[in-house]
């Protein structure tokens, strides 16, 4: 792999950039691999990378029906945080956070992980109870966080309306300084390049059309480019997980919903942190290019159309203008939608399935991007050892039968 560095960049400039190597190969599928990963988004690519790097399993194919990182990796609002309420969820996301903190160097790819802090606002007394509960739990779990007063909030975000005149005045916030944003596409590309360098075959435009299953055990997949065999198959297909599960003959406790986001035109820097409000329902940050990136709510119906309903956008911008009256004259450039696969408890599934050798990693809802390295790391371990990683164990499908849900809906509201 060609190492990237500032010096290398200068050297390539002198040769008019004509000698850059491909970041990954475009291989022909082999007949057989040790492990097949279905889904070439951030989670799938991370899984392949850690399989090769940490477990020495390099004979791995990532099967992607479109282009690498083309699903929710390309469509999210890039927020990274780990201040989840429940121990199980917090542990998983904090595991991811620690990997984020060294990811650019590990991958030799600058994923522009920017720890500019994430603020979750509270507008009601119950919001504040929930915030205190979560921050206290985070602290005892070793996750950074504090509760801010409106005055402290105003100091960090001077442009926000923290007055008592607001319809839902800001009463306080939780604040995780280590949280922030990352460059979403670069995450997929960085994992892809690093996995490819370790020998992983990244098969784009390759669509799984079925599973090869015999005696309750998976031994490969059918694709539009022929059959590919492997004794271990990990599905990391986000919104399409339900469709894959159906192919394998079972159902999942999942629904795929549209989740919309939008950006403003680029503005000179005006907002240096990430601000989220569940109560008035909008979240916002500003990219290094200057766009305000704004997340909207999930539409309530199932949808694979990568678009949602317009009133959701209206409500979101009403919330943004309510919090930031100065943005009224700022203009929305573009909106889009992703497909989020959501579980009833707003937590993921990292689990074996009724089919032996077939594992699913899905149901991340709105939390997928922030978990990317952690999800891949834990899932690689699970695939390599054919056994749930301790951090993955609470997220098995079984919990929907026993009732042991990890209910992030409960007190943390919608888990963005």
């Amino acid at each position: 792999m060609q190492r990237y560095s500032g010096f290398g960049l200068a050297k390539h400039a002198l040769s008019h950039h004509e000698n850059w190597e491909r970041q990954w190969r475009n291989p022909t599928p082999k007949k057989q691999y040790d492990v097949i990963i279905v889904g070439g988004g951030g989670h799938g690519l991370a899984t392949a990378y850690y399989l090769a790097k940490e477990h020495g399993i390099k004979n791995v194919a990532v099967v992607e029906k479109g282009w690498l990182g083309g699903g929710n990796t390309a469509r999210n609002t890039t927020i990274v945080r780990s201040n989840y309420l429940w121990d199980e969820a917090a542990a998983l996301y904090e595991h991811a956070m620690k990997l984020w903190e060294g990811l650019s160097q590990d991958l030799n790819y600058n994923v522009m992980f920017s720890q500019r802090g994430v603020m979750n606002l509270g507008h009601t007394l119950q919001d504040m109870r929930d915030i205190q509960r979560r921050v206290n739990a985070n602290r005892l779990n070793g996750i950074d966080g504090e509760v801010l007063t409106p005055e402290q909030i105003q100091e960090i975000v001077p442009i926000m309306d923290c007055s008592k005149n607001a319809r839902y005045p800001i009463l306080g916030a939780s604040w995780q300084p280590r949280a922030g944003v990352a460059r979403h596409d670069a995450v997929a590309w960085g994992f892809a390049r690093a996995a490819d360098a370790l020998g992983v075959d990244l098969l784009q435009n390759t669509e799984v059309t079925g599973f090869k299953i015999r005696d309750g055990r998976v031994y490969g997949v059918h694709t539009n480019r022929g059959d590919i065999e492997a004794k271990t198959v990990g599905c990391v297909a986000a919104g399409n997980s339900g469709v894959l599960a159906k192919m394998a003959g079972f159902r999942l406790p999942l629904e795929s919903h549209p989740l919309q986001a939008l950006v403003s035109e680029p503005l000179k820097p005006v907002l240096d942190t990430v601000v989220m409000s569940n109560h008035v329902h909008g979240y916002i940050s500003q990219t290094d290019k200057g766009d305000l990136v704004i997340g909207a709510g999930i539409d309530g119906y199932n949808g694979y159309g990568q678009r949602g309903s317009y009133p959701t956008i209206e409500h979101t911008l009403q919330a943004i203008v309510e919090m930031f009256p100065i943005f009224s004259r700022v203009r929305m450039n573009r909106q889009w939608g992703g497909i989020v696969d959501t579980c009833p408890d707003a937590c993921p599934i990292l689990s074996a399935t009724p089919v032996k050798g077939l594992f699913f990693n899905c149901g991340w809802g709105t939390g997928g991007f922030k978990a990317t390295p952690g999800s891949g790391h834990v899932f690689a371990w699970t695939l390599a050892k054919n056994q749930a990683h301790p951090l993955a164990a609470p997220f098995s499908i079984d919990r929907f039968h026993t009732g042991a849900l990890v209910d992030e809906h409960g007190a943390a509201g919608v888990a963005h």
Partner: protein
Amino acid sequence: MFHIYCPYCEEHREEEEFRPKGQAHIVRPKDPEACSDEEWGDYLFFRDNPRGIHHEMWVHAVGCRKFFNVTRNTVTYEILETYKMGERPRITAESLASGEIQGNVQVAGGGQQTVGASNAAVEAVKGEQA
């Protein structure tokens, strides 16, 4: 934003008047105490999540407050029919796949009906069954 035909109000109304309520035709087990934990969990949480034809329940929340069913394509968002609680769909993935769309279909006009939607739906279904 969807334009939904309420089978009780007998009119198309804006989506803002409605709330989606998840998969339709989920029946509570008649004897819950006889269910295993697994069966009860299936009833509570496990859902079809099809890419294509989906039967779902909506409520006309700002309107007649009646629950009703919608057959909708989850990819094109085309609404193929709406029907009252207690009725069965006339259009299903299977009926589209076999080309047998039963007569007297209450198709909600004015919805976004993709040119060749039926064919697309058929393809989607066939793809899934392969």
